[in-house]
């Protein structure tokens, strides 16, 4: 097993480096010039000299190879550089926006798990019944519905319902306060995007739970447990769920990693100051350094999540553990 772990860890390095090269190349291929965008976006006149000065300021007049070496060196030293748009350190830009994204991702995962596992289990237990049908339709609807559309409808719904009941429309807060400062305000802002994103996650998890449970329920040891006369509740909780949950847990782990990236569209809808929105802005502003850092962050998180999941599998699967 240790050999497996070492091999697995070593694999991370070329993946990260490869991703870094890909990111750098992608960014340089994007047409456009951040200096022009910055100076001209007001639609007014600007001096041509200003553009040249801006290029010099941002180091864009150096050769591409030099820029890449700079990037790689900085990345290896955990120095993410400065945002080309605002001049502030990239780390600062990201860290100030990370809390809200992580909070929503966590809440979405909690919502997803809370809905998915019970519903998926019931659906598997009562296969082909009306409950099963409803759960399956519910799950597919979750995958099929565009999350941003759901978000728009949700906000509208909140406004209309609050206007109908309370006379004045109520809207979730639009500025972020940390959870410890004002938990109610924070939660009333975060719950809606969490539901929107969580619904989709829960749909995928629900289906996985259902199919994993279906497989496990056919196993002989379940039949034995039932034949022994054990209560159905114990059969499910102590025997079936434990084994069915393994693939589900790994799926949740992978989903969480992708949630961070998947918040891109949701944060637009709810006007959340998170890294998903930062990413769209960085691309729109053609801010190379910021975009590179963000993509590497997401990629690193997902590589790491894959690593953890693989290692967890290795630990839990006796065939590998005792190899």
């Amino acid at each position: 097993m240790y050999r497996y772990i070492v091999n697995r860890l070593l694999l991370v390095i070329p993946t990260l480096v490869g991703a870094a090269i890909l990111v750098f190349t992608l960014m340089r291929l994007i047409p456009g010039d951040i200096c022009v965008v910055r100076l001209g976006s007001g639609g007014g006149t600007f001096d041509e000299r200003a553009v040249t000065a801006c290029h010099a300021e941002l180091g864009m007049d150096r050769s591409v190879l030099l820029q890449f070496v700079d990037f790689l060196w900085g990345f290896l030293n955990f120095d993410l550089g400065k945002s080309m748009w605002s001049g502030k350190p990239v780390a600062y830009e990201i860290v100030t926006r990370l809390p809200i994204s992580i909070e929503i991702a966590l809440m979405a995962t909690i919502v997803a798990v809370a809905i998915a596992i019970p519903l998926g289990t019931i659906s598997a237990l009562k296969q082909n019944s009306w409950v099963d049908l409803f759960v399956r339709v519910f799950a597919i609807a979750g995958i099929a519905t565009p999350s941003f559309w759901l978000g728009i409808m949700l906000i509208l719904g909140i406004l209309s319902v609050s206007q109908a009941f309370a006379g004045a429309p109520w809207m979730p807060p639009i500025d972020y306060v940390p959870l410890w400062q004002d938990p109610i305000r924070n939660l009333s802002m975060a719950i809606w995007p969490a539901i929107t994103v969580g619904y989709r996650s829960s749909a995928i998890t629900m289906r996985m739970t259902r199919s994993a449970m279906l497989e496990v329920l056919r196993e002989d040891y379940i039949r034995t447990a039932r034949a022994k006369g054990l209560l159905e509740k114990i059969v499910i909780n102590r025997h079936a769920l434990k084994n069915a949950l393994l693939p589900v847990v790994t799926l949740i782990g992978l989903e969480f990693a992708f949630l961070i990236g998947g918040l891109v569209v949701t944060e637009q809808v709810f006007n959340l100051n998170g890294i998903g929105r930062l990413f769209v802005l960085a691309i729109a502003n053609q801010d190379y350094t910021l975009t590179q850092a963000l993509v590497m962050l997401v990629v690193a998180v997902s590589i790491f999540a894959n690593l953890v999941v693989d290692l967890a599998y290795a630990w839990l699967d006796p065939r590998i553990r005792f190899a």
Partner: protein
Amino acid sequence: MRSRYGAACIGAMLVTVLPAAAAETLKHGGTLTYLIPADAPPSFDGHRETTFATVHSAAPFYSVLIRIDPQNPSSTTDFVCDLCTEMPKPTDGGKTYTFKIRQGVKFHDGSPLTAADVAASWEMIIHPPQGVLSPRGSDYAMVDTVEAPDDATVVFRLKFATNAFLPGLADPFAWIYKKAILDKDPHWYEKNIMGSGPFKFVDYQIGQSIKGVKNPDYYRKELPYLDGFTAIYADKQAVRVEAIRSDRAEMEFRGLPPSARDELVHALGDKIAVQESDWNCGSIVTANHKKKPFDDVRVRRALTLAVDRWHGAPALAKIAVVKTVGGIVFPGSPLAATRDELQRIAGYWPDIDKSRAEAKRLLKEAGAEGLSFELLNRNVDQPYKYVGTWLVDEWSKIGLKVSQRVVPTGPWFEAMRGGTFDVVLQANCHSIVNPALDVTPYLPGSAENYGYYTDQHELDLYDKMLRETDPQKQHALMNDFENYVTDEQAHAMVLPWWNRIIPYQSYVKGWKISPSHYINQDLATIWLDK
């Protein structure tokens, strides 16, 4: 000229819908919460930025030398002093302006503000040192020197007399910084805020909000009425409209489309007030003269003759932020063409059928019937995409097959600067209405002119107009210039001017709309009636 055009046009421009109000007693206190339709300004340095995000974020913290009168902000000629004591008359044949600076003004850190600070700030704008950006520097090409001979006097010496100087001086980005700081570090103001304005800086959460609090030492004794303000960054229009609707914020200062206004008025009735004004932004269509067949003036004229501006504008006004049909000069300004003068220009003929027939005839003559090309457009809804869709439809009526290529801002600039487009829809926006300078984007060789052509006659016409100081004669010369650029040569097509719509909670008082979303943003005169 002010009496002839100004009063009537100001009245026509300004449409105010206010709830019937009894005599209002001024109330002090309260915090104004408003929205900024942007993510975050690239920096807080007004001298180096061109985006309204910077102005809306930091204007309350600073003072300027002169500005448009906040009590009459829709005027294009009513300039008043902020830091000076009275508006000077130019001397020396119109080439020297001497300003006397107010005494007793203090920066927020307690130090006194003197003429040296004013001169240093302006010097930074007009003659930026190496490594300092000043995008509006070329607006002040007529300035020779700016000096502070003593603590209370600032003198501007011009190279030639022109009445384009004073409006230029009222630039809302020209904040007065502290000379001592500028001397030490000319980039300090990009990330830091320290001015002499009605509000003091409190807090900035990047991408979230910026907060200010009342300046107790403000040199206008009564002001500001508010205790403080919070500005929240909200890029998404739907969020802003809903925030205003649910009273999470009082207003925004850029402009909302007609649908938002209708929704708010419908939902909130009396609780919402709306102010509207012509906006100092116009949409322009420029054809790439380097691409055939747009080098042929007949094709360019056909393009402008096909578009029915007089009927299109009122229809578009219901869904987009455009309204007034005008020429190259801001409608209502003394230099703007009158309706009669306009109707003689190609594209403004009152009979659209005759106009389109002429367009078809020109196309046939040029051998460009049924031409198909691509309109390059910016990926911004209001009003770019609406106007673009309307144009495609209008051009189809003379048999042209036009497709739209909508790109985000970066590639849009890239394509314009690279000349890789057929026809582009762009905007010409300015802060202070200063027609003599506002029309420079139409000049070949200007950084904003993406037509890629040379035309010495056009430059000569412009120069003559710029240096003419008699208003009547200048109006006639501007008319000649306009005829040449948009009719005879059809170098550019002017489309309806934008319309600024500001709906706001009706308990907000003391703010008047202006043609520019850059001016009148220091919030000093705003008070809350609740």
